[in-house]
């Protein structure tokens, strides 16, 4: 256990430069915007006095490293600036984000559940029927769903289930639980292709191992060999990468939330982009980067927990 704790601490320390570099990139985005940085931070038709106030507040007249220092100081205190976009002007970006955070987390959570509850059984089935019809069908299915852009799949779902069949609401959260089904399905199915492929190859690897052959030769029923012994080993590498999936889901959420007008961080961000609301966009990117870093840490820790070789190596 002690080695696990020291491994986690080591990983946490290694995450610090990643956080610093990520915040640096987010900070530098301001300088990638076309024109004077102050124009990206000020509402349209701002007066000269307002522009000066914004320069003062963001420290745009300071040398770059001071600006970055101030930026770090502000974000570490939860101050992500104020929105300049239409409809949300002068509202703190952090409160805009926290209001929507639970919606995005819920969407990602249900999406993950759909992805894994589809991908794991399909992957097992494909591995056990390797090169037979079922395997072929499943592999073609994963190829096609992986190639399907999520926004298009979302539009097709919308067309089928809400326009033609009228079963589920098309947009927003007005339909209660029904509203989340289509966005979560869109998000989950895209990732399920990857989960299926991983589960299949992991299972194929395990069932060729010596200890599985040995169990079979002892006459233990196939069902027991697969579900009691092989599955336990095969499923671990698939589960440990859940953390890495978070990055994929965060990106997917931006697209899917936009398709279904699901009021999460992703929709906030795309609305921010269309409204030229730079502080909101910057804040959203920062939160998403944070998600990705946490996800990677989770994967590292989980991996070390199930496989002692990782933390001792």
């Amino acid at each position: 256990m002690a080695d696990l704790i020291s491994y986690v601490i080591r990983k946490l320390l290694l995450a610090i430069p990643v956080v610093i570099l990520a915040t640096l990139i987010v900070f530098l985005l301001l300088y990638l915007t076309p024109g004077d940085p102050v124009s990206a931070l000020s509402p349209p038709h701002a007066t000269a006095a307002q522009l000066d106030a914004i320069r003062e507040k963001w420290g745009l007249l300071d040398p770059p490293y001071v600006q970055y220092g101030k930026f770090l100081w502000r974000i570490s205190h939860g101050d992500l600036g104020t929105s300049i976009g239409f409809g949300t002007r002068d509202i703190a970006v952090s409160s805009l984000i926290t209001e929507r955070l639970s919606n995005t987390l819920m969407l990602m959570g249900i999406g993950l559940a759909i992805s894994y509850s589809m991908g794991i059984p399909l992957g097992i089935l494909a591995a056990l029927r390797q090169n037979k019809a079922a395997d072929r069908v499943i592999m073609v299915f994963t190829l096609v769903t992986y190639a399907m852009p999520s926004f298009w799949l979302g539009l097709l779902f919308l067309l089928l289930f809400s326009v033609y069949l009228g079963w589920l609401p098309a947009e927003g959260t007005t339909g209660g639980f029904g509203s989340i089904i289509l966005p979560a399905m869109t998000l989950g199915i895209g990732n399920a292709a990857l989960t299926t492929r991983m589960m299949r190859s992991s299972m194929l690897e395990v069932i060729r191992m010596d200890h599985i052959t040995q169990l079979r030769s002892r006459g233990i029923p196939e069902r027991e060999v697969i579900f009691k012994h092989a599955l336990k080993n095969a499923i671990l590498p698939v589960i440990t990468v859940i953390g890495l999936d978070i990055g994929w889901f965060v990106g997917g959420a931006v697209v899917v939330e936009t398709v279904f007008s699901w009021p999460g961080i992703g929709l906030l961000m795309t609305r921010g982009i269309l409204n030229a609301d730079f502080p909101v966009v910057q804040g959203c990117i920062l939160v998403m980067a944070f998600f990705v870093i946490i996800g990677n840490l989770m994967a590292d820790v989980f991996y070390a927990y199930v496989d002692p070789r990782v933390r001792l190596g």
Partner: protein
Amino acid sequence: MKRMRMSPRRMLNDTLLSWKARGGFRQTVAEIIERGKRNAMVVIGTTIIVILISLAILAPVLPISDPAMQNPNAEELSPTWNHWFGTDNLGHDVFSRVIWGARISLFVGTVAVLFSLLIGMTLGLTAGYFGGKIDYLISGAIDLFWTFPAFLLALAFASALGPSLSNVMLAIAVSYWAGFARLVRGQALTVRERQFVEASRALGANNRRIMFTHVLPNCLAPLIVWASIGVADAITIESSLSFLGVGTQPPAASWGYMLYRGKTFIEEAPWISVFPGIAILIAILGFNLLGDGLRDVLDPRLKGLRR
């Protein structure tokens, strides 16, 4: 005497033989084609890509209507013989826009991947070959860019740069290079310890020569695999960015941009969105099939590289 017409297969084989005889880089390419021919995924993927590229190149001479022509008398028509994929809200012919869209989407995908290949190869070679502090710095950057999904990075860059064709390519290129750099760096690290490198250094070869004659040809196979999958990913990223409104802008109407415009009319005129989506699906499928197939025939160890 009648001259025998050569079958395409024969021609391919002859070319392969003459390439092989010349050795070096050409030999590697010839071998890749040789082995690829026998893999169904490679064949299907290549066929799809060749068809798409031909359509894209031939778009100006094909008997299709002008993609920019607006017909106020033919708005939101459902698919018919005159308009195979129907018309959009401004009376554009969707079929001809899908064909012309192939030019934009394939162009963005290929150019973005070539740029990121260039960035990744240069950084990977430098890091892997020289080692030391340079390697430490570059590896840090590789790890950082590898940690974040390319789509999120590209979204961040594109939203700051603003929507335009060149900005999208730039955003994808600077987000995608880490995979190439990792591959090349790893290869350079192993190759530089090999005896033939030592031998050629003893013969007086300088660093640049060793990198280009020994290290790079050794990475060629995985780079081609990665580049093919990369084009598929780049097309996905471009279409997603365009769908969100930070991608390509008219007159360069890519498939993603068509969906961005079409989604408002999804209820009354679904064909505006459905057909460009099918085009994206087919293009991504083609490049993925080629990449996956090549990976299987060239280097099975690379399985699971992607994720």
